[in-house]
């Protein structure tokens, strides 16, 4: 267990230090996120929907696309100079490499969220929701889901000629089911929909906040475990 923690920490710190020195990924993510917010803010002038409905959409779009940037780099950087071979030769379980990369991606998205959420609140003129701890919880759950699938597929698309394009398709398709409760959760927290939703639409598919959170926890657990188990096959062990 100690050995596992040590190796996990070693890879985690290596990636954080590399990012801190090159400052390559995080600035790109933030700029892309802000561009998305800016475009959507202009669109919202014309649309008849309220800011409370626009904000969740903007947040998830920004997280998904900026998350893709972080995930793509996480293994593309290892491919240069064949660093991945060195990592795989190290006497550690391959799953540890996945978990370390996952943690790095989650941390990157967390930092990104800490910047973008206030930007969205300011841009759309929304007050901080009363249940802000729940907001952080939903964002974190979404964050784990996006990163778990993205980290695995990032390693997978390194085999391909069209890395970025392929990664975005694969990740977005797999994340589709999670985006329904995730959107529901944010809409509810921003007060755009009532607490109990009935009807026949996609959002009433979720119904209540508790179900939304439960669904997201189930998704995160299922996909993190599955990706962790399958990672060895992807990198060819």
């Amino acid at each position: 267990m100690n050995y596992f923690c040590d190796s996990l920490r070693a890879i985690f710190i290596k990636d954080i230090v590399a990012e801190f020195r090159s400052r390559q990924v995080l600035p790109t993510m933030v700029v892309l996120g802000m561009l998305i917010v800016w475009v959507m803010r202009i669109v919202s002038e014309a649309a008849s929907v309220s800011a409370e409905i626009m904000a969740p959409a903007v947040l998830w779009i920004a997280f998904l696309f900026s998350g893709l940037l972080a995930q793509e780099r996480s293994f593309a950087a290892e491919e240069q100079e064949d660093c991945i071979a060195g990592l795989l030769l190290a006497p550690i379980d391959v799953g540890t490499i996945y978990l370390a990369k996952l943690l790095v991606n989650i941390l990157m998205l967390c930092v990104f969220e800490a910047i973008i959420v206030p930007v969205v609140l300011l841009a759309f003129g929304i007050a901080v929701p009363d249940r802000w701890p729940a907001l952080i919880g939903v964002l974190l759950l979404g964050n784990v889901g996006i990163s778990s699938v993205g980290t695995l597929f990032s390693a997978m698309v390194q085999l391909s000629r069209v890395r970025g394009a392929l990664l975005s398709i694969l990740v977005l398709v797999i994340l589709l089911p999670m985006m329904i409760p995730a959107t529901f959760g944010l809409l509810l927290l921003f007060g755009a929909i009532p607490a109990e939703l009935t009807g026949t639409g996609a959002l009433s598919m979720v119904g209540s906040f508790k179900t939304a959170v439960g669904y997201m926890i189930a998704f995160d657990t299922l996909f993190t475990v599955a990706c962790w188990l399958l990672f060895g096959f992807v990198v060819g062990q």
Partner: protein
Amino acid sequence: MRRLLILLTFVLLAASTWMSLTVGEVTAAEAGITVEKNIVYVHVPSAICASLCFVVLLVAGIAYLGTNSPAYDYIGAASAEAAFVFATVLNATGCVFARAFWGYWWTPSPRLITSAILWFLSVAYLILRAGVPDPARRARACAVFGIIAFLDVPLLFISARLIKDIHIANVEFETAWQGAAFGLSILGTLLLGFLLIWLKADVLKCRAKLEEELVD
């Protein structure tokens, strides 16, 4: 053997089509739907087949990762293509029915979303397959994606079955002829799916052999 199966599939599909248009025609049980409801004879079997293709994809993926035998990779690829075909038919017939019955082509209702995601999953698999050049690595990537894609399917189906939906409930037939036509169409479509997977897997095997000989 294979020719016999092709013939049998053709006969079954022709018989079920004929029956569904004549003796098994669904008459107005609900106000406003008469002719449109007959789409059930194509719509439901393709839904069943598309879901089963994903099960095959999962089994083939696990079998490939376990054995590294390319045969399972071919079966996986073939079942993804079959899933794509059936999911396309499922969504297309669904759109036609929705337009005639509800007045719009598509609406975000649970079952409609589920079917759309099935289609997207099969397309993503085919794009991944086209994107990786090296056969062994492609097979491994596809097997992993097949398994991950299947994890979405139960999540979707459980949620879609438990909730109130604009989609009409499971069809209940009034006459034995209708039930027979429905049974025949399911059987015919299942056989068609089986044949599609079998034939495509063979084609892929032949192509791989040819490519190997060309390299030599």
